[in-house]
């Protein structure tokens, strides 16, 4: 969370001392991701959905697909919008009301990672050019918090999209008409995977848990696609990275991303 407690300050010292000895507070290797449990199709009424548990961080994503008006300048492309929200039951410090800046950043970074990878081919989501297109909404809700929401939301949204079934609409009498029973998968071209790394002291660790998140001085989230290209990046936190560190982080994100991508694929295949 954004607020730091006295306990965080004590833990910070402990976390840093352990890192000096090459250890992490929960015993993981520096480039090791926490246990990732994915339940695809957790919300059968949504067009696609997933419940993801990354360590003790838990996120549910539901995808809704429905006809929408295109943006005026992109009448030949469908809409893809990904959101993220921290529910007040996810942590005692989360309050209801308008989203805090860090939650807005979360939603935008998760959206950008998927959007910039061109995972969904929005040019195929057109019902009638300039009049009506298909809108794909992937809404993430965080139900339990233990750090690294960027990756948990990204994985939940990706699996929810991979398992989504799109209805078909025809253009009849100047409006979209639903074709009953005609469901197809979304046009997916790649599987984006985000990997978030935190800088604590002079050490960089992958998938920081809640305690590490509260102790870090800077972080970077890098999204890679199926071809191993980097397609989105966000640096955050009030410290900087050296050039070497950034290069290292890029390589780590490709290597770790590859392992995670297999897990996301397995979750998708599990429901087919």
């Amino acid at each position: 969370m954004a607020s730091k407690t006295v306990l965080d300050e004590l833990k910070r010292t402990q976390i840093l001392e352990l890192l000096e000895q090459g250890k992490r507070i929960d015993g993981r290797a520096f480039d090791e991701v926490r246990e990732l449990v994915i339940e695809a199709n957790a919300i059968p009424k949504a067009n696609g959905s997933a419940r993801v548990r990354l360590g003790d961080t838990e996120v549910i994503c539901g995808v809704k697909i429905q006809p929408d008006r295109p943006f005026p300048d992109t009448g030949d492309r469908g809409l893809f919008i990904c959101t993220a929200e921290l529910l007040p039951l996810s942590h005692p410090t989360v309050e209801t009301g308008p989203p805090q800046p860090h939650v807005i950043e979360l939603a935008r970074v998760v959206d950008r990672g998927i959007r910039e990878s061109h995972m969904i081919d929005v040019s195929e989501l057109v019902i009638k050019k300039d009049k009506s297109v298909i809108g794909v909404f992937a809404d993430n809700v965080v139900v339990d918090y233990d750090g690294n929401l960027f990756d948990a939301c990204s994985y939940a949204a990706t699996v929810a999209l991979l398992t989504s079934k799109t209805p078909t609409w025809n253009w009849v009498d100047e409006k979209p008409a639903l074709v009953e029973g005609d469901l197809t998968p979304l046009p997916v071209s790649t599987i984006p995977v985000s990997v978030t790394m935190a800088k604590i002291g002079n050490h960089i660790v992958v998938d920081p848990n809640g305690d590490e998140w509260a102790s870090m001085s800077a972080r970077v989230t890098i999204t890679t696609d199926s071809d191993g290209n980097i397609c989105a990046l966000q640096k955050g936190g009030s410290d900087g990275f050296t050039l070497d560190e950034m290069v290292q982080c890029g390589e780590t994100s490709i290597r770790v991303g590859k392992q995670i991508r297999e897990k996301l694929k397995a979750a998708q295949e599990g429901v087919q």
Partner: protein
Amino acid sequence: MGGRDATMVLLDENGIRCDGRKIDEPRRIMIRAGGLKNADGSAYIEFGDNKILVGVFGPRDVHPKHMSNTDTGILRVRYHMEPFSVGERKNPAPSRREIEISKVIKEALEPAVMLEKFPRTAVDVFIEVLQADGGTRCAALSAASVALADAGIPMRDMVAAIASGKVADTIILDVNNEEDQAGQADMPVGYMPNLKKITLLQLDGVLTSEEYKKCVTVGVEGCKLVYEIQKQALNDKYFGKKGD
């Protein structure tokens, strides 16, 4: 919500409803106590196709401070539906309907919770509807009671809830989404079985005075069924599952 079929038979000649249930048969109900790590107490309920998660915090400091009461604790309830919980994507901002349901659930729970033991504090109940299929307020209220008990907050009783209603001129238990849309009356009932008190009651639809009596009675009897499942959920968490 949608999915309404004009040709659907709500009640056939054998007294079987559109989803295959008998007139006094509730949908499948599963309640799990606990499950969330950060919340002080939590519960998850599956009530037919409804899926609802409840988290409880407190008693804790009240923010904003002016809401606090020096004589008693206060209960705050937020009922919220996820954008993907219903047929057409719901705007995530709270609607007037959600604000009203939050209020009736709060007032249904208040008589059960011993708030007077915790002056100047707040107990916050957060209800998140992950998937909705008619009767969410009752399912949410039942789960919220379990979550409050799971948080260890002293209570006089748990509130159990279920809806009764009128479909094809017959009083039925546990109104589902289709019956709510196409039926004649829907009556959500919240009841504390030990104290024998009704703490939530709403009705929309027309009932004769006889039907009204029957409808409340059927609802209260249904609540007793839900109550057993609530107790079993707490039992399973704190004393181990049967047969373990």
